[in-house]
């Protein structure tokens, strides 16, 4: 649809949350929890940490929770009984105040879980989530969205996007049909946007540091460049923090939990950075050393996903670098890969 442009007053923002609740929509938004910022259910605007650069973890858990039940069964002498787990139990939810890189991160997950046969656990939750992103007035040294096709005002994946313009005004972009329905809830608070508003004036300046196409090209050609992967991953301890904070990482594991009478099968986040990820029972491990596992992380995002699903699996949010306990910096590593050869 053709996008619609409106103006909303900052002072009316709290009414939005109230009205969403009145309509029965839970609101998920960034919330300060000590040193971290989590995406959580909020009661009012006061709960929301709108001034933070980014939540500590991405917004992916909205549709792809860290732990999710996919099976339930009872065990008896007479046999096993399965109790169907309905993937479609989520309520229509508003994801509010996330950044453009979080909204666009869903396109990787959409591609992975949407490929036939579709994973309804993800798809139903995603379908029922409306995303109101806030563009970025600031960025830090870890941000590199503009190098991977995004930007501080990128609207891809958002249903609505808010940009603060001036003291009491928010520039509202209504981007999708879903966004239009949500905007209808506060239509009376919106006024028509004057022509010629240039939102880029209000956005952070995120410099392009590398050419994403070049990274894709060089990654694909560098599989056997063992020195490159070793050098970049020498200090990697394989903790998997990068995957857990990443908006596009979708690898998962299943684990059963049971007592003597009943059990559940859980789907849990996993990471290709873990040494056990690919370990065979025989002891054979196709990715035996950490440099191979680092290579997999980069190749999957910049070579395999573009080839398989026509999407680059990185949004340039920089969370992996911020979370890394040994200070590996993906922006620097990708810049180095762009310069290979």
């Amino acid at each position, binding site marked *: 649809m053709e996008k619609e442009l409106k103006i909303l007053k900052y002072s009316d923002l709290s009414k939005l949350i109230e009205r969403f609740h009145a309509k029965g929509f839970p609101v998920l938004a960034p919330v300060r929890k000590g040193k971290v910022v989590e995406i959580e259910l909020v009661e009012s605007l006061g709960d929301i940490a709108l001034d933070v650069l980014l939540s500590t973890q991405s917004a992916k858990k909205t549709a792809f929770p860290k732990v999710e039940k*996919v*099976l339930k*069964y009872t*065990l008896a002498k007479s*046999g*096993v009984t*399965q109790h*169907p*787990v*309905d*993937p*479609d139990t989520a309520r229509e939810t508003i994801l509010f105040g996330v950044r453009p890189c979080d909204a666009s991160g869903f396109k990787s997950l959409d591609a*992975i*879980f949407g*490929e036939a*046969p*579709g*994973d*309804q*656990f993800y798809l139903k939750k995603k379908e029922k989530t409306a995303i109101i992103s806030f563009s970025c007035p600031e960025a830090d040294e870890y941000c590199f969205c503009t190098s991977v096709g995004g930007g501080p005002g990128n609207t891809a994946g958002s249903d609505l996007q808010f940009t603060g313009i001036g003291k009491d005004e928010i520039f509202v972009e209504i981007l999708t049909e879903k966004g239009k329905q949500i905007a209808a809830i506060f239509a009376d608070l919106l006024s028509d946007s004057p022509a010629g508003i240039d939102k880029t004036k209000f956005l952070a300046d995120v410099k392009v540091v590398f050419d994403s196409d070049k990274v894709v090209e060089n990654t694909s050609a560098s*599989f056997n460049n063992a020195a490159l992967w070793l050098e970049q991953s020498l200090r990697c301890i394989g903790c998997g923090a990068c995957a857990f904070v990443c908006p596009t990482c*979708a*690898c*998962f*594991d*299943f*684990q*059963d939990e*049971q007592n003597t009478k009943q*059990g559940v*099968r859980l*789907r849990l986040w*996993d990471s*290709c950075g873990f040494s056990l*990820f*690919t*370990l*065979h*029972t*025989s002891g*054979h491990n*196709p*990715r035996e050393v950490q440099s*191979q596992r680092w290579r*997999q992380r980069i*190749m*999957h995002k910049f*070579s*395999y996903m573009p*080839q*398989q699903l026509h999407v680059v699996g990185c949004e340039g949010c920089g969370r992996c670098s911020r979370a890394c306990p040994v200070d590996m910096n993906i922006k620097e590593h990708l810049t180095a890969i762009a310069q290979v050869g």
Partner: protein
Amino acid sequence: MEQQNIYQPYLMEIEKITEEAPMVKTFRLKFTNEEEGNNFSFRTGQFGEYSVFGEGEVTFCVASPHTRKGYIECTFREAGRVTTELASLNEGDTIGFRGPYGNIFPIDDWKGKNLLFIAGGIALPPMRSVIWSCLDQRDQFKDISILYGARSVADLVYKQELEEWKERPDVNLVTTVDPGGETPTWKGDVGFVPTILDRMKPVSENTIAIVCGPPVMIKFTFPVLEKYGFSDDQVFTTLENRMKCGLGKCGRCNVGKVFVCKDGPVFSRTQLKDLPDEY
């Protein structure tokens, strides 16, 4: 209708357990829901995720041929957590099965050709599905040869079927055990699979070779096939990487741009050469 929960298995009853070798068993499984069983079909080469409820899932190929309906079989070695639990089950117990997943051996393309099956150890089960699928329509194929090797005589699986294949005039079966693995009464060959294959001097013309075994066997078998003129398009194998979902989503069996579960597990050697060495 679109499948709601793609991770929910069928319930299967263990109808029959056969002890194949030390720590190796075959389960014959039938669908507890008859309608599900009637609607189920697979093609040789495909695999599934077998559940022990409370322990988790494990990946095996379907070891029975698609030409025989009403049941599926799997053969496994007791090795890890789930297979150990699986091995402790009895006839009449219930397990789960998700599948069939993955691609197939293109046996329809092989009609009118000679087939040479080369298997090592516990890799005979995936091959057994293809062998019977071909033997059940024997007139469609020319010469059928099977070379099967195991570490020792005790480790040979499907001993009864090996006898059956040996008796058949339309099958050329060669069995071998690793040096030191023979018994005083062993009548088969002694030697590693690649050595015995070399001695067989396989004819490559109009022949398809299907190879499945431990990585080291495959590594030394391919050069022998090359020596006898087998092109990469004439050689097929089935890969087994660690898997969880079986549907190309969990990321585990990713090798280069393919997922073994979704794009494989069957690959021609031509396709294999296109993959990085991560399997």
